[in-house]
């Protein structure tokens, strides 16, 4: 039950947050932080259990019809993520209190934030694939609302939509993938699936399921070519970026891959797809980060690069890689969240995020500066920070990669070097520099604004110095979850002088050189600017921009607003569909029964055909109506001949009244001229003749069938004794099938209301919209 509690409590907090404004004033952030802090403590308290190899589970049925259960499980991997979510969450919530200040909608902001936190916790705790998906989608929704929080800005709206659509697209694909996995594995419970890896990997649905699932994971974790939504999402307020875009949501894809590794991982497909996508993303993110000058965009692109590294590491599928991935995950979350908050603070206190405008802030913003420098050092992988350990592990893992290790190493060094340059540029450069700080009005933020980054920065240092604090209690159980077996985790700063250390040093040197050459790099990239259309982001924007116009044209062709073309389409499609049975219908022998005709009937029919042609051909209204009348009376005569007196009387009365109404109406209409050009007339003629033939054949065939007369003989026998009526037709109308008649009377009633309203209720009687 305690598994459900964090999610429910956070959700409750989300619901109550809008009230925060009324009760809290400037203490809002602190008050709100109680919940995530409590959750952090709670998750910490689970450490011993998990470390000992235990799990917490909770499961109740929810929608068994679809295989969706409320199943939760807390194991090493979940716990690692849960601690990040709650821990970073606490700091972000406090930070947001200062960042938003007296923003009128800060309650709403907290609501979205808690909604996100709740669903993110759900993602990492869910033990049912579909439940996981439900939370997964909820994080997308929450992210949409958070990115678009400053919704009066067009950029915010656009970025929110972009993030939603890209992750939403992936999400839908992933849903299909999940369903396929559930079909292949015969269950949707994650822990069950994990033990059925062999079954899954050998199933014919494995590859499609994997591809679909990867689409979901890759879009969420901003892998190329879907990466562009993440830098775009920098329109979000800083706390959002610090939370969603560094530590939590963008890691959901990584989480999913790590989680399902025992079930799906280890195959060639898995290996190549992940390393390829991850490696490419790592390089692309780094390259794109290079020319950026906006603090947040710099960080955004470097996050893309880092996510690529993570995905690649998971793709390597070795114990070492798993270890490296999880350590780097923690490292990255700590420094990136700190740097995003710092960027937000700078923005908040100076009014700019352009790195070219910022220098010498150390003196006015000392705490922020310390936090930033610590985080940046961790990012560069400088000893003795945790980042160093992460980088060492990463290089080690790459060197031992099953294939292409050289390529991976080169790409890794390059990407890391760029990230080092980014770290210097974003975490150090604004604070250093001689002379007067710039911009002039800059000053230190409040406690809430620097506390979070400082704690995160310090923890990077602390954990670097004492890596065992997380190594055995946290990383080891998590690695166990990913590898489905026990793996020793022994983290240490110093491994002696070995190739890995040399690589680390090389990386830092290259990184510093890149930083120093940054202006040239920027110029070079400006010259090399790839046409926007070729970039995925450009493709997306083009598509979104072109979609309405394209749809308009497409639909304009099909749906042109013209009634006649609608009718034409309907009749044509009907004929096409019916053509299949048309051949069977043409039962020509029926024609031989032409014998039983009476000459007066023939005369009548000929007269009626003439009247019909008159209706068709007539150009004057009166003639057409008169011909219609003749036709109606002709039909009445047929009814008389063929023993239907009630029908005949009805037909005559109705025909008369129709003609009367027609006369009332038609006087005001102009003469009818033929307005269609010849080809249209020909086309219509063909369709008319074909459909007429169809109906004639249909009628012929139907009348040729010997029908079962059980019902009419029942009426014939029971009409008098049971219903006291000799006119069987009338008995049917008022007794056997009285309900039809009641319906028919209702139709008349409604028609009358309609006619009355149409004539009497005119526009000038007044109206209002709605």
């Amino acid at each position, binding site marked *: 039950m305690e598994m459900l509690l964090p999610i429910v409590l956070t959700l409750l907090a989300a619901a109550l947050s809008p009230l925060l404004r009324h009760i809290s004033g400037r203490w809002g952030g602190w008050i709100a932080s109680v919940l995530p802090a409590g959750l952090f403590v709670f998750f910490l308290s689970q450490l011993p259990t998990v470390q000992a190899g235990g799990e917490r589970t909770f499961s109740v049925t929810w929608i068994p019809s679809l295989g969706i259960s409320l199943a939760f499980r807390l194991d090493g991997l979940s716990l690692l993520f849960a601690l990040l979510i709650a821990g970073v969450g606490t700091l972000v919530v406090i930070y947001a209190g200062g960042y938003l200040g007296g923003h009128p909608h800060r309650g709403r902001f907290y609501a979205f934030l808690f909604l996100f936190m709740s669903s993110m916790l759900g993602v990492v705790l869910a033990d049912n694939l579909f439940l996981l998906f439900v939370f997964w989608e909820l994080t997308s929704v929450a992210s949409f609302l958070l990115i678009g929080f400053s919704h009066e800005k067009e950029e915010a709206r656009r970025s929110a939509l972009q993030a939603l659509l890209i992750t939403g697209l992936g999400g839908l694909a992933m849903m299909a993938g999940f369903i396929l996995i559930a079909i292949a594995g015969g269950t949707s419970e994650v822990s069950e699936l994990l033990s059925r890896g062999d079954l899954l990997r050998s199933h014919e649905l494995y590859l499609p399921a994997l591809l679909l699932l990867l689409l979901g994971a890759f879009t969420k974790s901003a892998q190329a070519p879907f990466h562009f939504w993440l830098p775009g999402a920098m329109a979000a307020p800083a706390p959002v970026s610090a939370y969603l875009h560094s530590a939590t949501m963008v890691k959901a894809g990584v989480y999913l891959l790590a989680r399902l590794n025992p079930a799906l991982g280890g195959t060639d497909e898995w290996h190549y797809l992940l390393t390829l996508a991850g490696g490419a993303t790592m390089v692309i993110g780094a390259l794109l980060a290079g020319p950026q000058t906006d603090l947040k965009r710099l960080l955004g692109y470097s996050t893309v690069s880092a996510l690529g590294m993570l995905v690649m590491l998971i793709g390597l599928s070795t114990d070492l890689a798993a270890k490296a991935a999880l350590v780097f995950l923690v490292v990255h979350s700590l420094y990136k969240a700190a740097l995003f908050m710092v960027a937000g603070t700078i923005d908040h206190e100076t009014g700019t995020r352009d790195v070219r405008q910022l220098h010498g802030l150390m003196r006015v913003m000392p705490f922020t500066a310390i936090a930033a420098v610590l985080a940046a050092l961790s990012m560069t992988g400088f000893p003795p920070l945790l980042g160093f350990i992460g980088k060492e592990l990463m290089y080690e893992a790459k060197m031992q990669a099953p294939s292409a290790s050289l390529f991976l190493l080169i790409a890794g060094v390059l990407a890391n070097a760029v990230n080092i340059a980014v770290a210097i540029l974003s975490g150090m450069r604004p604070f250093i520099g001689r002379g007067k700080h710039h911009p002039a009005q800059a000053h230190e933020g409040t406690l809430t604004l620097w506390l979070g980054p400082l704690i995160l920065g310090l923890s990077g240092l602390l954990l670097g110095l004492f890596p065992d604090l997380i190594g055995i209690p946290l990383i080891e159980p998590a690695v166990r979850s990913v590898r489905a077996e026990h793996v020793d985790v022994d983290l240490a700063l110093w491994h002696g002088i070995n190739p890995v250390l040399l690589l680390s040093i090389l990386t830092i040197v290259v990184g510093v050189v890149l930083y120093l050459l940054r202006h040239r790099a920027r110029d070079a990239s400006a010259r090399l600017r790839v046409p926007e259309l070729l970039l995925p982001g450009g493709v997306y924007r083009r598509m979104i921009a072109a979609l309405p116009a394209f749809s308009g044209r497409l639909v304009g062709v099909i749906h042109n607003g013209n009634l006649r073309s609608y009718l034409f389409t309907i009749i044509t499609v009907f004929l096409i569909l019916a053509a299949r049975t048309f051949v069977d219908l043409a039962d020509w022998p029926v024609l031989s029964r032409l014998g039983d005709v009476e000459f007066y009937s023939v005369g009548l029919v000929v007269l009626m055909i003439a009247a019909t042609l008159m209706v068709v051909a007539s150009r004057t209204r009166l003639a057409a109506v008169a011909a219609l009348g003749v036709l109606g009376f002709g039909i009445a005569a047929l009814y008389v001949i063929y023993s239907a007196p009630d029908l005949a009387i009805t037909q005559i009365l109705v025909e008369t009244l129709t003609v009367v109404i027609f006369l009332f109406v038609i006087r005001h209409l102009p003469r009818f001229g033929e307005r269609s050009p010849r080809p249209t007339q020909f086309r219509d003629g063909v369709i008319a003749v074909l459909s007429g033939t169809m109906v004639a054949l249909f009628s012929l065939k139907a009348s040729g069938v010997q029908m079962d007369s059980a019902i009419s003989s029942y009426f014939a*026998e029971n009409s008098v004794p049971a219903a006291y009526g000799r006119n069987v037709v009338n008995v049917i109308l008022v007794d056997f099938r009285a309900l039809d008649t009641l319906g028919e009377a209702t*139709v008349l009633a409604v028609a009358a209301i309609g006619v009355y309203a149409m004539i009497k209720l005119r526009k000038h009687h007044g109206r209002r919209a709605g």
Partner: protein
Amino acid sequence: MHVLLAILSGILFAAGVWLILRRSLARLVLGLILLSQAANLVIFTSGGLHRAAPPIVGENATALEAPYADPLPQALILTAIVISFGLFAFFLVLIKRAHQETGTDDIDAMSEVET
């Protein structure tokens, strides 16, 4: 006779289709009326044709004596006629008012009325 009536239904239907594909409102109604006549006739024909045998029980009988015309299709057609009557009464007034409001009886022109 089935054959003749079937052909007549076909002609009515064809004429109806032709008329509803024309551009004049009045011909649209005429076409729909013809279509409904065709429908009634198809039902009537497919129910079987009997001469001089209306489904009315004789004075001293308690049941219809065969052969008799099937009363059910007649009842159905009667209902259908009445329903169509209601619909067409409405539709006729509708085109009158549509013509008044839009100022045209040309269906193509009316389709372009900003709706």
